[in-house]
């Protein structure tokens, strides 16, 4: 480790499965030494596609790569008593253990909070589970879709009277990962002051429910159950419109005079020239009619033409793009968002999505490509636990590593 990252010096053991692996990556990207602890056959996430060139193989999973950039890999059979014992020894030198097993699993392996805390009182244990560590749904099973359902995220997406629409990407998992990383940092600040580690109980359902804040805001504030509204944003200031060559996002929060002069100049303003439309709240109340008029106006424009002119007038319009456009996006390119990472085994460079922020003194950085299965097992057991070559070979022969 070169020590320039903000989190360099932090040692993290990441036991999490495919539901929880983003948290460790967020911390690894900022310099933490994150060891991905996998079962000897490789983590189940390695079997999830897409794969490089669509060839399914545990060292070609793009799913695994996305969530495990910058981590090292140790294969260890935690269900074997000797494996659990090695894990406990590793925990003595670690700052954080991340796990996302079904509640109770860590205890059954002798690695529960009591055991870890006894082994290392300063250790923080982060448990990410679909429904947390307590309560009537504790042992319920879930994937991202079920969590998005029970967290209230699905219900508000889609058209009224039609089936709810799932988000693109695993947003229940991702919302949880950000809260998990935030919780970790808070626990580390508390440890710095109080000296003791603690156990973080992260419920993915709760993190999902917290990520649809307008739903609770409407319910508690006005007793209203937020409906699905198609593309009309709940604030009523945004709706998707259709141009000649694709969709755009209207926004009626910008400077009204600039917008309406433009629309009127095109001869398409209809009744929008009336003074009451200058009132932003009036625009929200009458949003359906307003957007119908604006839809008729944009129909003859091309998306890009509309976007450029709108932004010149400082109107917050956007094109509704396909994600492939991100690879060629000039703004992302200028900021170096996509980064090339060498994969020597494949003899090629892979473009990864990079940092969402630029730290000027402790940069986000790629220090290593995602690990091959068990790639660092030997060096970790040697460097962290002082095992010699014979001991390591014996563990391998027993199938523990």
């Amino acid at each position, binding site marked *: 480790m070169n020590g320039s990252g903000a989190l360099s010096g932090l040692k993290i053991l990441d036991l999490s499965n495919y539901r929880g692996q983003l948290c460790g990556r967020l911390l690894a990207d900022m310099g933490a030494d994150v060891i991905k602890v996998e079962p000897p056959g490789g983590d189940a996430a390695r079997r999830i596609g897409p794969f490089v060139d669509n060839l399914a193989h545990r060292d070609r999973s793009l799913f695994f790569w996305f969530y495990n950039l910058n981590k090292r890999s140790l294969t260890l059979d935690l269900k074997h008593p000797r494996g659990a014992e090695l894990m406990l020894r590793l925990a003595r030198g670690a700052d954080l253990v991340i796990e996302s097993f079904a509640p109770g699993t860590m205890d059954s392996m002798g690695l529960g909070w009591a055991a870890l805390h006894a082994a290392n009182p300063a250790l923080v244990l982060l448990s990410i589970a679909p429904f947390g560590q307590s309560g009537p749904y504790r042992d319920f099973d879930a994937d991202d879709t079920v969590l998005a359902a029970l*967290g209230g995220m699905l219900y508000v997406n889609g058209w009224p009277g039609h089936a709810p629409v799932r988000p693109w990407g695993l947003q229940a998992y991702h919302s949880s990962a950000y809260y998990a990383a935030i919780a970790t*940092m808070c626990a580390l600040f508390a440890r710095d002051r109080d000296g003791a580690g603690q156990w973080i109980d992260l419920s993915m359902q*709760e993190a999902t429910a917290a990520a649809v804040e*307008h739903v609770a805001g409407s319910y508690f504030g006005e007793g209203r159950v937020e409906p699905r509204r198609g593309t009309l944003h709940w604030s009523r200031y945004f709706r998707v419109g259709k141009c000649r060559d694709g969709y755009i996002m209207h926004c009626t929060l910008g400077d009204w005079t600039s917008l309406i002069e433009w629309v009127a100049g095109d001869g398409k303003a209809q009744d929008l020239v009336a003074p009451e439309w200058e009132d932003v709240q009036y625009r929200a109340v009458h949003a359906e009619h307003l957007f119908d008029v604006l839809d008729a106006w944009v129909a003859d424009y091309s998306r890009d033409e509309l976007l450029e002119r709108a932004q010149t007038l400082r109107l917050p319009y956007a094109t509704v793009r396909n994600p492939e456009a991100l690879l060629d996006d000039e703004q992302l390119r200028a900021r170096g968002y996509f980064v090339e990472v060498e994969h020597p085994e494949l003899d090629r460079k892979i473009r990864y999505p990079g940092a969402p922020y630029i*730290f000027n*003194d402790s940069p986000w950085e790629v220090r290593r490509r995602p690990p091959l299965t068990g790639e660092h097992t030997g060096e970790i057991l040697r460097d962290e636990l002082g095992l010699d070559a014979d001991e390591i070979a014996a563990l391998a022969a027993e199938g523990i590593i």
Partner: protein
Amino acid sequence: MAGSVTRLPLEGIRVLDFTWVVAGPVATRILADQGAEVIKLERQPGPLGARQTGLQGDLHRGKRSIAVNMGTPRGVEIARRLARVSDIVMDNFSARVMRGWGMDFASLSKVKPDIVCVSMSGLGHTGPRSNYVSYGPTLQALAGFTLLMADRNGQPAGYGYSYADMSGGYTGALAALIALWHRRRTGRGQFVDLSQFEAVVSVAGPALLDIAVNGRDQSPPGYRSQELPAAPLGIYKCRPRGDDDDRWLAISVRTQVHWESFVSAIGSPAWAYEAKFRTLYLRMRNSVELDANVARWAAGEEAESAMERLQRAGVAAGVVANGADICARDPHLRARNFWGTVPLPDGSTTHVTGIPMKLSATPGAIRTPSPIIGEANDYVLGELLGMSRAERDALIAEKAIWPT
């Protein structure tokens, strides 16, 4: 302050908060719940309608408020003095705004070398589009989410809200904590240039690598698995609940064991034993027919009891919960005491979104309701900046400070 028996993790950290709308306030709210003293600098006079309940109550709880007229030189001077006694300054403006006030990192670090500045602009401070004006819905449209949240006809059908404000807010809170951690270790401040656009692009996930590596055009996920393969996998309409005909159940059947449990939990119907549904591979291949069968079963079921039955059998299933479900009916969220309660000055209480992370020793606290504008004028000017009553009155008279 209720619930302040245990010390909060971020006690002693002072945040000067210029953020507005949603993403920025989400970030500073997260810090406030963990004990940071967040001073919300408001640029308009009060009062401002009902800000203590609903989404606004959620966004600003636990914060202090000072109302500064940033259009006056004296107002700007007060903001600069406040930055000098703060640990971190956060904003979500485009680059020119803070620079115009001399409140950017380059200026502030001259007078306070260890200051941390986190700027959460729409598209970042650099690059050809850094001056674009944006909101959450426009950023998620640019990032590909809007197009890929399509209905069965391929028409955009979401988001109905600003998920980009959430991804931006979380990324902002995390960035603040990491920069403060760096300062604790090294004594050095720094500038974090956060692009909310990049924050929401980043949560798209492995699909971005699929584009970059395989060049594959992405299509709306519909009911295709984005993780471990499953079939059935979908959202199925259930029996009405009273006069509510909008009840749905999400079901995800991943393994053969799950499938067998599923079949038995729904009463072992004959169709489930047909050869075309025998393996996961076959169920995925014949998913249209499979879904039609599951949909027929679900249509006769009440969503909650069907979920209970499937979950007791070990099958992942969940009610598509609406606002009343998550806020009032979900027995699990209630049992975990998820929703927060905030006492209001008039003696009533309001409920807000809880803290979705339970730290065993320092659980965080929802301490105070969203402040009225200028609530902390006296505290900030008097205690933090050491101004006398006469000085404060003079600032109000010259309209550099808006009165409470």
